[in-house]
C-alpha cells in the first residue's frame, strides 16, 4: 500500500496506521468512544495481508495481559480503550513498565469518574502521567490534536517503545477519536520477520533457539537490594527519556501578553480562541505539550517569561495545571479553565476565561 490521502475518523486512522506500521498484534475490548479501532481492524482483516493478529478479548484486563505476553516475545503489540477500560488495564500497564517491555496503549478519554459519560474529556491526565498503576514508573505519553497525529503517533509511539523498552500511551480524547479529517496514511511497512525480532530483541521470550540461555520476562524480585537496583535502572531510563524525548508546539508565543497551555484537541479550540482574542486586541500565545510525560517543563517556563498570566485550558477540574505551576514556579498568575463531564468549551468561552480570569484581575 502506497502513501494515501483519506478522510477518516481518528479511531479508524489508528487502525490503518497500526497495520501500515507493521504492527504484529492488536488486542482490545469494545468501549465507546473508541470501538471503531477494533471494528476497523476486523473489517480490514490484516491477518490476510500483513499477518497482523487481531483479537477481541474477553475483557480489558485480558487484552492488556495479551499485550504483555506479545510484548514479552518482542512483537509490536497494542491495545486501545477508553477511560473506564484503561482503569482496568492499569495493573497490566504497571507489569509491562516494570518488565521494561515495548507496547502501545491508546486511551480515547471520556468523562468520568466512574462509568461517567461517553463524551470527550481529558480527566485521565493524572492517571496517564503520574502512574495510574502501582509503583514508580512512567509511560511516555503522547497527546494528539489532529487525526494526522493519531496516525503519526502510532509510528512514533512504537519507535519510542522499542527504543526505550517502555510502554507508550497515546492519550487522545473523544473529539480526536470521533472527528474526521484529512489524513496522509504512510506507506505500508513490512512486519519484522521472526529472525529480525530475535536480533532486535535478544531479551525476548519466544523460544530459546540455537541453545541460547533462557529468557525470562518477569517483574518479580523478592530480594530488596536487587529490586532497588531495578528501580534505579528504570529511573535512569526515565531521566534519559526526559532529556531526549520532550516534545511541544508553540503558536505565537513571542510578543504575546498571555499564554495558554493546552493539549490535544483542546489546544485547537484555544487556537481559534487566540484568533478571536486577537480581533479584540488581546495578544495570546499557545504552548501545546505533545509529550505529557515527559512534560515540557523548561519550554513552558521559557514561554511564560514576560507574560502577564497563564491560562491552563483542559477538559478536567485542573490536572495539567499542577505541572504548569511547577514549571513557572508561581512567578506569575496561573489560572485554570475547564469544562467537566464531557462538555466541550467553545472558543468564545475560552476568550471569556482569559478576560475574566487573567485580564479582569
Amino acid at each position, binding site marked *: 500500500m502506497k502513501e494515501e490521502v483519506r478522510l477518516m475518523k481518528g479511531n479508524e486512522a489508528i487502525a490503518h496506521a497500526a497495520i501500515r506500521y507493521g504492527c504484529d498484534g492488536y488486542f482490545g475490548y469494545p468501549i465507546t468512544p473508541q470501538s471503531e479501532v477494533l471494528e476497523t481492524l476486523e473489517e480490514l482483516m490484516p491477518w490476510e495481508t500483513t499477518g497482523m493478529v487481531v*483479537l477481541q478479548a474477553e475483557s480489558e484486563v485480558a487484552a492488556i*495481559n*495479551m499485550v*504483555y505476553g506479545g510484548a514479552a516475545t518482542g512483537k509490536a503489540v497494542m491495545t486501545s480503550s477508553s477511560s473506564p477500560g484503561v482503569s482496568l488495564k492499569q495493573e497490566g500497564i504497571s507489569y509491562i513498565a516494570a518488565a521494561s517491555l515495548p507496547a502501545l496503549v491508546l486511551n480515547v478519554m471520556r468523562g468520568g469518574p466512574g462509568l461517567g459519560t461517553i463524551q470527550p474529556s481529558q480527566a485521565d491526565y493524572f492517571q496517564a502521567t503520574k502512574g495510574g498503576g502501582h509503583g514508580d514508573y512512567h509511560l511516555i505519553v503522547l497527546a494528539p490534536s489532529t487525526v494526522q497525529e493519531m496516525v503519526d503517533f502510532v509510528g512514533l509511539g512504537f519507535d519510542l517503545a522499542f527504543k526505550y523498552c517502555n510502554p507508550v500511551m497515546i492519550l487522545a480524547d473523544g473529539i480526536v477519536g470521533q472527528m474526521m479529517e484529512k489524513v496522509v496514511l504512510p506507506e505500508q511497512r513490512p512486519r519484522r520477520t521472526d529472525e529480525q525480532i530475535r536480533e532486535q530483541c535478544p531479551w525476548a521470550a519466544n523460544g530459546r533457539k*540455537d541453545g541460547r540461555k533462557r529468557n525470562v520476562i518477569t517483574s518479580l524480585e523478592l530480594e530488596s537490594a536487587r529490586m532497588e537496583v531495578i528501580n534505579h535502572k528504570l529511573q535512569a531510563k526515565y531521566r534519559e527519556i526526559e532529556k531526549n524525548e520532550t516534545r511541544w508546539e508553540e503558536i505565537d508565543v513571542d510578543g504575546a501578553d498571555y499564554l495558554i497551555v493546552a493539549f490535544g484537541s483542546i489546544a485547537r479550540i484555544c487556537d481559534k480562541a487566540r484568533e478571536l482574542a486577537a480581533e479584540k486586541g488581546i495578544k495570546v500565545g499557545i504552548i501545546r505539550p505533545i509529550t505529557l510525560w515527559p512534560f515540557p517543563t523548561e519550554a513552558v517556563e521559557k514561554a511564560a517569561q514576560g507574560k502577564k498570566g497563564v491560562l491552563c485550558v483542559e477538559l478536567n477540574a485542573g490536572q495539567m495545571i499542577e505541572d504548569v505551576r511547577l514549571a513557572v514556579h508561581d512567578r506569575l498568575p496561573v489560572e485554570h479553565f475547564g469544562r467537566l463531564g464531557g462538555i466541550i468549551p467553545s472558543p468564545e468561552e475560552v476568550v471569556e476565561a482569559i478576560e475574566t480570569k487573567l485580564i479582569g484581575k
Partner: protein
Amino acid sequence: MEIQDIIRPENKVYCKPELLDEVHMHYCPGCSHGVIHKLLAEVIAEMGITDRTVGISPVGCAVFAYNYIDVDWVEAAHGRAPAVATAISRLWPQDVVFTYQGDGDMSAIGTAESIHAANRGENIVMVFVNNAIYGMTGGQMAPTTLVGQKTATTPYGRRVDLNGHPLEITNLMAILDGTCYVTRQSVHTAANVRKTKAALKKAFENAIAKRGTSVVEIVSTCNSGWKLSPEKSNEWMVANMFEKYPLGDLKNN
C-alpha cells in the same frame, strides 16, 4: 565391586532431566510441584521442543517455575496466564505454549481468562495444580477447598452457606467446544506419575497439532498448608480429594 564399575552409562536407570536446573527448589518437602516440574522437563526434552517452548508461570507457589525449567518463560500477573499464553501462541504459531496455574490462578481470579482461552480453543496446554488451598500466601481457602476443610480463612472448616461450593473448574472446561483434551491426574504414586507424564505428553502433542486447548489438572498435596506430613497428606488426598475430584479423562477427542 568398585563404585566406578557401577557408574556406567549402560547401568543407568534414572537421571535428572537435562532441563531441570541445578538449583534448590523453594518448594516444601513433599510438595507435588517438584514432581510435576520434573515431568514437564522430561516431556519437553523428550519431544525435542526445548527451543520453541514458552512457559507462563502464575502467581502462587509456582511463580518461580522459571528458575527451575530451562525454557523461555513469561511470568504473568495473577490469573492472567491464559491471556498471556493466548497472545504468544497466536503471535508465534510455531511455538509450544503452556501455562502452569494453581487453583487460585485458574479458578478464582483468573476464571474469565481460563474459560475464555479454553473456549476460543487456543492451541495451548494448561497445567492446573489443584491442592485445594492457597499455599504461597499461607494456607487460605481456594475455590477448590473441600466442604469442611480447615484453612487460614475457614478456620472452622469451609461452610457452603458462607463460602459456597468447591468449584470443579476442570469439569467446566470439559464442556467447552474449544477444549480437545481435559484430564485429571495425580502424582502421589509411581503409577500415577507415569500416567500424568503420558497425559502431559498428549497435551503437548495436541498443542503442536493445533487441536485446541488441553487441560491437565493434577490433584496435588500441600502438606504445609494442610498441616500434615507428606505421607499423611497423600493419604488425606486419596481419602478426601478424589471423591470430589475423581481421576481420569473428562474429555479425550
